[in-house]
């Protein structure tokens, strides 16, 4: 596939062995920045960006490492958000269980949608995931428990693991940061494991991978479910942080937004989706009062990225320092 061949060039030098020194340095830099950031920047904004960064990383597993463009990832983010919000509010579950419940629902949904979509490739795959996600959207519009246009509001934050009181915004920030880092490291581990290598082999030349005895469909399905699960983790966390689950998170525009974040940051790079998410969320924050101009700016970024900037921010940096990031 040529989608990712440019991204592949940057990852081509990656090996199965321990992460390179530059990657450890980049990771340390990221953790360091995120640890001091809440003392300078509004923590709620940072938490929003972190949730989307995890969402984009999960999405990137599919497009960057399997070469599958899902246009329906909002379904996982949104359904997990609704489940977590409902569990925390209606059943009074503690936040960690509520988030887990949302994650589990997203995983199950990922298995169902993945099983249907995985048999197709390229544009077909994008189209099918988009349509199935739209089905989930209409379900959420009509179902009683989602609260329709109002969504589920005033979700209690509660006490995480019985230890961390999430009503304190700093405590909550570090819980969200821990969740993000957990998801990030899990994905990093998956990408750099033998499993990840097989995924890349399938991306580059599926018939050859199959001829070597790998069941391509099974690998793709596992990757899809993993991606959906971590998208769900992001969605559940987001619902608890913002005390809200709404239709915005299930709508297809959200699926487009995560594509934008990943594309802008750099498809198939480890840190790209994080950078992309922070840029897009900041843009939205600054342009919020301009109404529909947000959409115009997002569209223009899409066009510019596709036409002239296909490696994305991190992809370009990686090319400049000639090391995969």
């Amino acid at each position, binding site marked *: *596939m*040529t*989608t*990712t*061949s440019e991204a592949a060039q940057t990852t081509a030098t990656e090996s199965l062995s321990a992460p390179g020194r530059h990657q450890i340095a980049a990771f340390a830099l990221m953790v360091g920045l995120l640890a001091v950031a809440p003392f300078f920047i509004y923590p709620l904004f940072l938490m929003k960006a972190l949730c989307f960064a995890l969402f984009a990383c999960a999405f990137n597993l599919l497009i960057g490492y399997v070469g599958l*463009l899902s246009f329906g990832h909002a379904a996982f983010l949104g359904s997990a958000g609704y489940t977590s919000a409902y569990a925390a509010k209606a059943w009074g579950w503690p936040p960690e269980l509520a988030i887990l419940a949302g994650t589990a629902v997203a995983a199950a949904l990922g298995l169902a949608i993945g099983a*249907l*979509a995985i*048999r*197709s490739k*390229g*544009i*077909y795959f*994008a*189209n*099918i995931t*988009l*349509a*199935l996600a*739209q*089905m989930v959207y*209409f*379900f959420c*519009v*009509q179902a009683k428990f989602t609260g329709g246009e109002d969504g589920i509001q005033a979700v209690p934050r509660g006490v995480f693991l019985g230890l961390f009181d999430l009503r304190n915004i700093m405590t909550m920030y570090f819980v969200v940061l821990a969740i993000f880092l957990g998801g990030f490291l899990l994905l990093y581990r998956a990408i750099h494991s033998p499993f990840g290598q097989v995924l890349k082999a399938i991306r580059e030349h599926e018939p050859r991978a199959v001829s070597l005895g790998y069941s391509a469909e099974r690998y793709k399905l596992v990757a899809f479910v993993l991606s959906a699960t971590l998208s769900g983790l992001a969605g559940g966390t987001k619902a608890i942080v913002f005390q809200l689950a709404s239709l915005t998170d299930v709508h*297809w525009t959200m699926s*487009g937004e995560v*594509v934008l974040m990943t*594309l802008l940051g750099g498809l198939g790079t480890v840190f790209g989706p994080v950078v992309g998410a922070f840029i897009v969320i900041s843009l939205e924050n600054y342009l919020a009062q301009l*109404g*529909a*101009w*947000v*959409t*115009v700016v*997002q*569209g*223009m*970024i*899409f*066009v510019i*990225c*596709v*036409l002239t900037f*296909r490696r994305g921010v991190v992809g370009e940096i990686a090319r400049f320092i000639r090391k995969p990031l």
Partner: protein
Amino acid sequence: MTFFGVPTQALFGQLLIGLINGAFYALLSLGLSVIFGLLNIINFAHGAQYMMGAFVAYFLLQWAGLGYWWALLVAPLVVGLIGVVLERTMLKRLYALDHLYGLLLTFGLALVIQGLFRNQFGSSGLPYQIPPELTGGRNLGFMVLPNYRAWVVVFSLATCLGTWYVIERTKLGAYLRAATENPSLVQAFGVNVPRMITLTYGFGVALAALAGVLAAPIYQVNPLMGADLIIVVFAVVVIGGMGSILGSIVTGFTLGIVEGLTKVFYPEASNTVIFVIMALVLLVRPTGLFGREK
């Protein structure tokens, strides 16, 4: 009079709405199929171009005093021309890359176009009158058929069949189909394939704009009128088999009617029925009902 416990009046009413929706599904998925067949991209901007067709009709009336019949001719030409420019300046650069980039580019264009129109005209609809020749309706005995709606169904069907005839039965269509199979060979025979690709994209876009003009008097002229519609049309295209001309026409009309019937018998599912059918079709035939392996 009732039919399975449903008043026939309501049944035929919903059938007609289904048929109208089907006419739009067919026209839009036909345009998508024509474009997909030759360019191998899914034109995500199709919904935005449909909306632009309706807006051109509105502008013609407001600024130039040109009515519906002029719009039916001019709007597809104008929007088609914009499509040609987009293809020449942007899409053309992506043919050597994965087809997914075409999808992403047109998605971005759709966001830009819809955002710009929303800034200018807000989210509420602008009214557009039914042309005086087509107002009123006729009583068929079991229901009243509004003339304009009958016209939409007939005109859209005629356009679809005309397009099918040109592509499947004429020399020009033969070139087109040949270029779909093997562009470099067709080029070697002296056919200007890049120009054919440009014109094909323009034609597909013009079909979307035509659907927009037809829709203007029924739905209001609204910046977001194509945004959600296009996703249903994507599902229609998947069900019909991507790139299949006849498939998109048949499934377009059929699914419109199925959706209308669902509104009568099980209204809760009317929004999702097309997606459910898509999932079922994919289980049995991953390439769609009329599609083939490519």
